[in-house]
């Protein structure tokens, strides 16, 4: 490089930079790096880009927001607030919305982007989960992503409360109530969060620091790690011809992905800008400045926290106990700590659980089709069902008013549904997956239905099937159907009990739950057998002798074998 004569300013700058950084090596490596193309691989990008939009709009907002609970009298253009005592946080939110031109747009963009950030994280996680992209070597990256989701919740929660309005203030009050329910240390933790009794004068500045410094810094760092892992592992790819665990097929980073992914950033930002321009969000002037007395109907958190709200709403109150004079509020702890704990633990450990029951130590870079791992897919759908029921329960008052139902009846329905529906959803999904796998086998063995019915001389009707081409077949046969683990017996040949048998036995049970019901992919031998014993053969052998009349579409079967017909189409 250093020997190359610099020509023109660009080359000159490049030469200058490379002599000091050796950047050419990185450019050479990165510019033609291959990324596979699929719409579902862009879901994570939506999350990344909405985070960038959050940073941009967030910086704008910090220029005008005053994170103080100092009390001032509101004097501004909004008549419904005129002369009222509000905190500086609230007053500055009003000011940046109504007096800073473009401020309201930025505020709405920020809030919509936050909702989109969490929504895209969830959809991205769903994609990764259902396609098995978390398998070795990506378990650690799944954990990083999981922590990013938790941090996203934290960012949303800390930001939601900053304007110091009635709605978010009541949200904080609920948080305080949940914290207080924690055994032994709850009351002290409440003091720790609020700097004394709720609401005090400290919470807004504290949340502000968390919201604009600590949480985004952590998110930024982990996003970096998340992407580093993507580069290190190279992206996964969907199954298809020529795509193996040893290669990655797609388009080069430069120029195709720079244009596609870069363009997508502008599209994501554009959609958020459209929402900010046309749809009002979190009108804090409707709720008014925080005051501990009022509350409004429809007191709910942003959507990603609705499952917690729903969980609290569903829990019957009988479960508060006094033990030795100390109060144990299981009516709060179970819905607010145990339920989310279980949900999140399931998410966090799932890749490790699946690795344990498959004992699969290979690296996987080709994704699973969801149907090919019925139990995983079923568990995922069951999990989502539980999450959705909780979120709906958190909206039960709006369901009641919009569908003219009794809120008490809805609550009872959801209480039962929370236990029944996920199991049902799991079972149905698993059955559907197995059914789809059988359908795949059927297709591979017998080909597509063509809709062409032919009749043999002996009066028998038969539909002509068109065999799958290589690519179509490959997608349907290229998977592993894991079998349940087999374990060594409890006692060895000398009758000595071995250690670890119990654990193995448990794993085996779990493994059976996963892989007891399975559909094996079609093997070449099976296909050959189907061809030689199936109806094709029948048709073939009868065809020359028989007088065949086509009953559909007027086509007449000639001397050609059905296979020939198939290839002609």
């Amino acid at each position, binding site marked *: 490089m250093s020997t190359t004569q610099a020509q023109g300013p660009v080359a000159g700058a490049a030469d200058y930079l490379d002599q000091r950084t050796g950047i050419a090596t990185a450019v050479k490596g990165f510019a033609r790096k291959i990324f596979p*193309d699929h*719409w*579902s*691989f*862009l*879901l994570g990008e*939506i999350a990344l880009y909405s985070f960038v939009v959050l940073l941009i709009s967030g910086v704008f907002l910090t220029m005008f927001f005053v994170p103080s609970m100092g009390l001032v009298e509101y004097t501004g253009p*909004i*008549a*419904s607030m*005129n*002369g*009222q005592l509000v905190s500086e946080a609230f007053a500055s939110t009003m000011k940046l919305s*109504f007096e800073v031109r473009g401020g*309201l747009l930025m505020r*709405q963009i920020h*809030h919509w982007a936050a*909702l*989109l950030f969490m*929504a895209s994280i969830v*959809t991205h996680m769903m994609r990764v989960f259902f396609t098995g992209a978390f398998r070795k070597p990506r378990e650690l990256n799944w954990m990083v992503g999981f922590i990013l989701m938790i941090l996203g919740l934290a960012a949303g929660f800390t930001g939601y409360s900053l304007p110091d309005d*009635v*709605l978010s203030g009541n949200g904080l009050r609920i948080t305080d109530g949940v914290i207080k329910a924690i055994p032994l240390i709850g009351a002290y933790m409440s003091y720790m969060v609020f700097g004394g009794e709720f609401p005090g004068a400290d919470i807004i500045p504290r949340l502000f620091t968390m919201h604009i410094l600590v949480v985004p810094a952590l998110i930024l760092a982990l996003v970096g790690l998340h992407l580093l892992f993507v580069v290190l592992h190279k992206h996964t790819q969907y199954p298809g011809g020529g795509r193996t665990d040893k290669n990655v097929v797609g388009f080069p980073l430069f120029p195709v992905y720079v244009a*596609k992914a870069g*363009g*997508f950033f502008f*599209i994501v930002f554009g*959609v*958020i800008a459209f*929402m900010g*321009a*046309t*749809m*009002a*969000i*979190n*009108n804090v002037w*409707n*709720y*008014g400045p925080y*005051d501990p*007395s*009022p509350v*409004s*109907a*429809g007191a*709910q958190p*942003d*959507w990603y926290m*609705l499952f917690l709200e729903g969980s609290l709403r569903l829990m019957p109150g009988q479960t508060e106990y006094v033990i030795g004079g100390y109060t144990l509020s299981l009516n709060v702890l179970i819905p607010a700590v145990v339920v989310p704990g279980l949900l999140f633990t399931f998410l966090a450990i799932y890749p490790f659980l699946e690795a344990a029951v498959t004992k699969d130590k290979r690296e996987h870079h080709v994704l699973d089709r969801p149907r090919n791992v019925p139990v995983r897919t079923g568990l995922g759908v069951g999990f989502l069902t539980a999450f959705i029921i909780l979120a709906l329960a958190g*909206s039960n008052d*709006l369901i*009641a*008013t919009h569908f*003219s*139902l*009794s*809120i*008490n*009846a809805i609550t009872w329905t959801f209480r039962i549904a929370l236990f029944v529906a996920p199991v049902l959803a799991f079972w149905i999904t698993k059955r559907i997956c197995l059914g789809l796998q059988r359908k795949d086998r059927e297709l591979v063995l017998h080909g597509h239905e063509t809709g062409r019915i032919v009749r043999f001389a002996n009066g028998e009707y038969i539909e002509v099937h068109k065999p799958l081409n290589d690519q179509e077949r490959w997608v349907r046969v290229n998977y592993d159907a894991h079998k349940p683990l087999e374990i060594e017996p409890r006692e060895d040949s000398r009758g000595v009990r071995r250690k670890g048998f119990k654990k193995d036995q448990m794993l085996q049970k779990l493994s059976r739950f996963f892989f007891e019901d399975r559909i094996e992919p079609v093997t070449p031998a099976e296909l050959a057998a189907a061809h030689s014993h199936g109806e094709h053969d029948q048709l073939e052998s009868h065809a020359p002798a028989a007088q065949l009349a086509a009953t559909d579409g007027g086509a007449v079967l000639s001397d050609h074998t059905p296979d020939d017909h198939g290839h002609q189409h």
Partner: protein
Amino acid sequence: MKALAARRHHRLTPVVLLLLALLVTGGLYAALAPTSASADTAAVDDIAAGEKLFLANCATCHGVDAEGRDEVPSLIGVGSAAVNFQVGTGRMPMQMNGPQAVAKPAQFDQEQTNQLAAYVASLGPGPSTPTAEQVDPALGDISEGAAIFRTNCAMCHNAVGAGGALSEGKFAPSLWETTETHIYEAMLTGPQSMPVFNDATITPEEKRDVIAFLVDQREGSAGGLSLGSLGPVSEGLWIWIIGIGSLIGCAVWIGAKSS
């Protein structure tokens, strides 16, 4: 009314308001004075006509003496305000039993409603229908109204009057379509589940402030479509429908091979 409300934040607002108040007061006086002159003679006729209407339409449930029974409230002492609200919003006569009587197109015109109200008011003293001035949003203080609404009303009717759920299928209705007079009467009489806000706890001036606040909310949201003003749940619904929906659409387009 909307055009008026839109100008309220202007610098000249106080002057305009004052002029307006003068105009309205004058106009009201001019409008009301002749009727009040003939009121005494008309009143007797109204009560008689109202009694006929009552016997034909209300007595089945409330009884010929209007004393009510079991679940049906007595109408003695509820005043003309309650009648004007219940009949004027179409809640009464009730068509079928449900968690609560719901608003529907009114069965009687304003004159018949007034006659019914006059008859019920004659049965015993009770709160009467407010005057036009008492419910004129232009005379109310929006900020005061906001503070009172927030503490006393928002928990059921939602922060800007979009309505909300009560227990067992009952609900607090949206206030966006409700007339100023009916809002006033509802506060005063406490229909069905709603508590009574008498003139000692919320003064007539404060009631007018609340009306002014509610009318001001009808201008919609500064940020764009109000999404029903239902709060974070509807916002969450829209981020999935519009945000994720359209972006997945774009992603599919990006990932698809060009023809």
